[in-house]
């Protein structure tokens, strides 16, 4: 009998190295070359390598779950590549924004490349949907930390496309998102991606940021509608009209006061939700099946996988129930925290909508910008820098 060695082990280091190189290249293309064309090339490379060649199964989006599971499960150690795929993009985002999203992530690259005619998502919808990634992140961590399932991997829409096979639901959601993605810029990145949520937070406090213009913003407004991902922000005084000031203050106070209530309500709701969520765990599910089928005769003849599983439980009833109770206990804690997290996310979003910021230039939002470099092409100063157009001469002020 042959025992071929694990391919996977060797690839861990190759993948981590390719990731580091791709991130470095992305940073260089965004900040030094300021080249959209370069980023397209990088996107195609990432799509082919991380997507179609590596079949999307070493990916930063899912690595969050490996880390969560490694932290809470003593029997599991996260692989080196999972740690690298989590830490490198976050570290880059803390200093230089979401370079990972721009052209290294195969999911982002795929959606970026198929975008045909971006439509503007209404602000209320965009703001409302933008809390989803954080909730999805919380759910992913909850189910990974309890050792239940990696939902982010299970419901990943693009991996079936990279693999050219998959469960019907996954394939359908992938195709649907691709069709949607032709008209709405990066729908998965903006409204679902849990890793994008982490990078968004990291990007918000980043040291360096993506700027539309290479030097000076002349406020020509040419870039105003250039961002297909709704990340462009317009200049603001940061100060409301005196007449609006009291009502704005009231609304902010309301948001600040309601947020703790939301957190408590979420925690309460989460605890109520615990038994339902725990049913996704195989041990709990098996214990329920076992209790439901107690006293019924064992099936005979050809046994289905479910029958065989039940048989395993019947041989060891005590162990089955103890394992289930342990998991249930973990879930009580986990879903409470998850509920509180949902409350916090909604509250924080609400508060952020009530804040005013001072902004003098047209600039992409630090958190929302995926550094795709599209807006650069719209800036006349950028075109001057590239030598596409010549700088406007000052009108001659010669004396007559």
């Amino acid at each position, binding site marked *: 009998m042959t*025992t071929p060695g*694990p391919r*996977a082990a060797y690839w861990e280091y190759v993948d981590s190295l390719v990731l580091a190189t791709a991130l470095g290249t992305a940073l260089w293309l965004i900040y030094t070359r300021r080249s959209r064309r370069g980023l397209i090339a990088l996107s195609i490379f990432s799509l082919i390598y991380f997507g179609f060649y590596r079949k999307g199964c070493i990916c930063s989006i899912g690595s969050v779950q490996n880390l969560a599971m490694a932290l809470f499960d003593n029997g599991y150690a*996260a692989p080196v590549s999972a740690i690298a795929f989590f830490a490198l993009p976050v570290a880059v985002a803390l200093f230089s924004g979401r370079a990972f999203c721009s052209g290294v992530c195969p999911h982002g690259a795929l959606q970026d490349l198929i975008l045909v005619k971006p439509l503007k998502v209404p602000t209320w919808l965009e703001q409302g949907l933008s809390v989803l990634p954080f909730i999805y992140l919380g759910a992913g961590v909850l189910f990974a930390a309890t050792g239940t399932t*990696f939902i982010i991997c299970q419901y990943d829409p693009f991996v079936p496309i990279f693999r050219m096979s998959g469960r019907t639901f996954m394939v359908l959601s992938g195709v649907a998102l691709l069709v949607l993605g032709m008209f709405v810029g990066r729908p998965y990145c903006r409204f679902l991606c849990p890793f994008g949520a982490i990078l968004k937070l990291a990007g918000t406090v980043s040291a360096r940021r993506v700027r539309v213009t290479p030097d000076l913003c002349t406020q020509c407004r040419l870039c105003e509608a250039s961002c297909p991902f709704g990340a462009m922000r317009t200049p603001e005084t*940061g100060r409301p009209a005196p007449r609006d000031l009291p009502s704005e203050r009231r609304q902010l106070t309301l948001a600040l006061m309601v947020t703790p209530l939301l957190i408590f309500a979420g925690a309460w709701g989460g605890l109520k939700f615990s038994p339902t969520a725990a049913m996704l765990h195989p041990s709990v599910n098996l214990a329920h099946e076992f209790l439901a089928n107690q006293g019924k005769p064992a099936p005979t003849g050809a046994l289905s996988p479910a029958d065989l599983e039940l048989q*395993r439980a019947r041989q060891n009833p005590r162990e089955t129930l103890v394992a289930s109770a342990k998991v249930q206990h973990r879930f009580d804690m986990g879903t409470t925290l998850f509920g509180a997290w949902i409350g916090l996310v909604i509250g924080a979003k609400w508060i952020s909508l009530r804040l005013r910021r001072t902004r003098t230039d047209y600039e992409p939002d630090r958190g929302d910008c995926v550094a795709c470099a599209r807006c650069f092409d719209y800036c006349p100063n950028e075109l001057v820098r590239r030598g596409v157009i010549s700088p406007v001469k000052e009108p001659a002020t010669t004396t007559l």
Partner: protein
Amino acid sequence: MSTGASSGGPVNRRHFLRQGARTAALAGGGVLLGLLVGRTSARGTVWQIDPQKCVRCGNCATSCVLKQSAVKCVHAFSMCGYCQLCTGYFEPAPNDLNTGAENCQCPTAAIRRTYVEDPYYEYTIDERLCIGCAKCVEGCNQFGNGSLFLQIRHDRCLNCNECAIAKVCAGDAFRRVPVNQPYLLKAISH
């Protein structure tokens, strides 16, 4: 008059907050990484089937994310009885003890039966044809020595974050094993 509302004020405060948050995030991330790296095994893990726990339910053939499962049947020759009437090879009530498809367990004819000497036959698995359905494994376990068993073949396995077969494994037989010992083999000592 106070000069608190000078134009530099709020920008500096924001800058300070941002830097503080960044430092906090880095420190938190560092602690997290330290915790994880301390626990990560030097060379990582891969998925494998524990043949002692496998209940031959057939999910391996259908649940793998690969079109043809990464799970294949392997044969521990040291355990094999080289039976003429191999219950892993033949149907429970074969019409005849020959290689006719109607007599065989294997749906893809992946088991090759070769004559050794009377009354012994050798059975080898053609891994290109095997789909990991475990029909032969069940047969071998019922009446034979259990020398046929399922293993994840690591030249095919993608080592997914979450193994799709492990999720539905009826015997709870899937587990992560160290990379330097990637197979859980059956063998008897002589």
